[in-house]
């Protein structure tokens, strides 16, 4: 009771935590796991300010970037920067008390619960429990250690980036992630967080201050404490704004800079890797010359170019339907030999089996190891996800073009290949159907984070969908430009910004058409 009063009093004097204050207070809590209410109260009464977390904000082009603020035996504090449209996996909190609060922007938290199907063997299924909760700065989501729900955090579609502060009781060494593909949990080591500038903290929790005492008690945040870890700690201090950082950040978000930036090389193994690939057809047409391309997991790459630039040849090479006359193509480091269900190719036409019903079309291609009931269940849920519920028993020829394509997409998604290769799949659809297919595909991509390589000659389509554009040129087929798109999801073809980009990309295409020589373009 007394503590509470003091807390209120403290809010009146200092409305926000610095991270140093926060960590000092967490230290004072002792067993953080056992005190979810304290966390909830402390963080809803005093917010962590944007100024405080700014040094830890690292924006990724996509997905989220975690930066560790502080870690010790009893707890860990992280700042996570979510790019527009980023979505975290469904994650078990592993009996931790965890606490999430946005500092900037909005995030959405959805509870998921495992549903065991009665009397049915096989993997459990996850179902969202209740509507998603929207977190805004000032709201605090605390998941106590006794809750057995899983959570997924994401930026709601159509909204921009967000920055969240996470507190986990006990440092997290491994996370349990629900693997929708296999219906099981995978326990994977926590991805190493980036290290932010260390906090200026006294080496040992000197006292056990209550929340109310925190502002008075902590180590001086600006001046170096008795034993700061490095001199850099001063960066955290207010009054020393990281000006350069701020400028770069502003440029990105105020749109002063390009939305299209040359794709930077990424470390780590590429999902799909094309190295110096050449391909000539039997009639001596040189379809590809010296093509190298690394596609990383979760990227949405559009291959764009005039006809005859070898974009389809490149796609079919990735699919394994064409073995190139030179160079190497690998998936996860393994050479690709022949087509395989882990790299699903979708064609310009829906290509449903005409003698099977819509549902049978899906069940037919599923793994034979699943039981008939499991296959049907899976087919139905995927058909529902493309809004074809109720058409399970229709024949393909009874469907409209868009519905056929959706059925084809459901079929492709049901096998849950990590890589989707799409050869102008929406080329034959009318504009409206096409737009709805784009929205559908985007929602699938954001939900599943599949790696998608998408061939198109439609600039707008590429700009609406892609996270990365690869512009190719003909005679011989080669890569002319490789640019990343810094645009969030929910893009609309009629956006003026997008139209401006389209002009820019059309310029690249004209260059591709007229590009005379190979050598001069490699810059």
């Amino acid at each position, binding site marked *: 009771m007394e503590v509470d009063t003091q807390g209120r009093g403290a809010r009146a004097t200092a409305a926000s935590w610095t991270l140093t204050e926060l960590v000092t207070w967490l230290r004072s809590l002792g067993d953080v796991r056992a005190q979810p209410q304290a966390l909830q109260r402390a963080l809803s009464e005093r917010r962590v300010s944007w100024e405080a977390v700014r040094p830890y904000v690292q924006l990724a082009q996509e997905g989220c970037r975690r930066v560790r603020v502080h870690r010790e035996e009893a707890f860990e504090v992280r700042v996570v920067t979510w790019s527009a449209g980023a979505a975290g996996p469904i994650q078990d909190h592993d009996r931790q008390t965890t606490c999430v609060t946005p500092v900037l922007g909005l995030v959405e938290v959805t509870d998921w619960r495992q549903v065991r199907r009665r009397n049915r063997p096989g993997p459990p299924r996850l179902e969202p429990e209740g509507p998603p909760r929207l977190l805004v700065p000032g709201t605090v989501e605390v998941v106590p250690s006794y809750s057995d729900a899983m959570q997924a955090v994401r930026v709601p579609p159509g909204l921009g980036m967000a920055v969240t502060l996470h507190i986990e009781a006990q440092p997290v060494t491994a996370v349990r992630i629900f693997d929708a593909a296999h219906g099981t949990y995978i326990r994977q080591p926590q991805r190493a967080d980036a290290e932010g500038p260390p906090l200026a903290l006294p080496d040992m929790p000197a006292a056990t201050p209550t929340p109310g005492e925190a502002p008075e008690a902590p180590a001086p945040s600006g001046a170096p404490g008795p034993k700061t870890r490095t001199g850099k700690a001063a960066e955290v201090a207010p009054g020393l704004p990281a000006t350069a950082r701020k400028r770069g950040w502003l440029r990105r978000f105020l749109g002063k800079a390009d939305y299209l930036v040359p794709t930077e090389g990424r470390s780590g193994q590429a999902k799909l890797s094309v190295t110096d690939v050449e391909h000539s057809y039997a009639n001596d047409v040189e379809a590809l010359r010296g093509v190298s391309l690394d596609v990383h997991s979760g990227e949405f790459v559009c291959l764009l170019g005039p006809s005859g630039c070898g974009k389809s040849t490149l796609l079919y090479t990735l699919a394994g339907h064409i073995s190139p006359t030179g160079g190497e193509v690998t998936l996860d480091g393994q050479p690709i030999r022949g087509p395989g269900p882990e790299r699903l190719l979708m064609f310009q036409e829906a*290509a449903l089996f005409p003698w099977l019903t819509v549902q049978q079309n899906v069940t037919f291609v599923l793994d034979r190891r699943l039981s008939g009931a499991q296959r049907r269940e899976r087919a139905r849920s995927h058909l529902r996800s493309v809004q074809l519920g109720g058409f399970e028993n229709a024949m393909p*020829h009874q469907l409209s073009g868009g519905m056929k394509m959706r059925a084809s997409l459901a079929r492709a998604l049901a096998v849950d290949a990590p890589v989707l290769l799409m050869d102008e799949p929406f080329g034959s659809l009318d504009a409206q159907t096409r737009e709805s297919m784009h929205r559908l595909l985007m929602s699938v991509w954001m939900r599943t984070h599949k790696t998608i390589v998408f061939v198109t000659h439609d600039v707008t389509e590429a700009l609406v969908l892609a996270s990365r554009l690869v512009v190719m040129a003909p005679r011989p087929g080669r890569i002319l430009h490789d640019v990343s798109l810094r645009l969030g999801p929910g893009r609309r073809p009629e956006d003026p910004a997008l139209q401006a980009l389209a002009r820019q990309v059309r310029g690249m295409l004209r260059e591709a058409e007229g590009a005379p020589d190979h050598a001069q373009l490699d810059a």
Partner: protein
Amino acid sequence: MRSSTPRMRLLQRAGAGVLFVALWWAISHFGPWPRFLLPDPFEVVKRLFGMAADGSLWGAILVSMWRLIRGYGLALLIGLPLGIAMGQSVVVRNAVRPLVMGLQALPSICWLPLALLWFGLTDAAIIFVVVMGSVLGVAISVNDGVEGVDPLLLKVAGTFGIRGTRLQLGVLLPAAMPSIVTGMKLAWSFAWRALLAGELLFVSGGLGELLTIGRELLEIAQVMAVMVCIVLIGLAVDFIAFRPLQEAVRRRWGIEGTA
């Protein structure tokens, strides 16, 4: 060309039938042949009913149909895999296709002397002739059907990792089904002809025997009644078995615009 209404079509058909019967009646009464060599339609129909009443016709039909079913079934069992193998494997295709095409040109009745020597005067000999008459037709139509399968569907099957028997039975066969059904229909008429030719050549207890007996006893009404019966069976099988089958396949495969 103007499309006719169903009623008009029925009228036209009935008119042609009446005209045909009238012409037959006129020729048998006023033609160059004596009446006993060309009985008029009514005598033939009377005879047909007579044979149906005393049971001899039904027995003969049963015997013939049983042979046909066995022979035709065997032809399908051999012809379907052979056709798929020809469509799937270049080796099999190159080796077997010329042979199949050559033998297809041979009228099936030419196999009868061999069949008689190999199997004797038994059902097996006739079934052999029936099989030889229809198996190649089945194989060729299945082969054509498999080769005509939309390559896109094969690519789709490939990308989903569907291979082996699952590809053959689950994709190739159903994809080729419309042309296989057409081939089966054609093969059935070959088999039917081969059967009657075989039955005509030796006493056997089928429809062919009735025909031979009629000729030997100069019972031309019986000969013509059996001929009518053969035509009717042919039409009936077409109407009862193949038309609905073809229609079902076309509807399921969505070949006609049946929305």
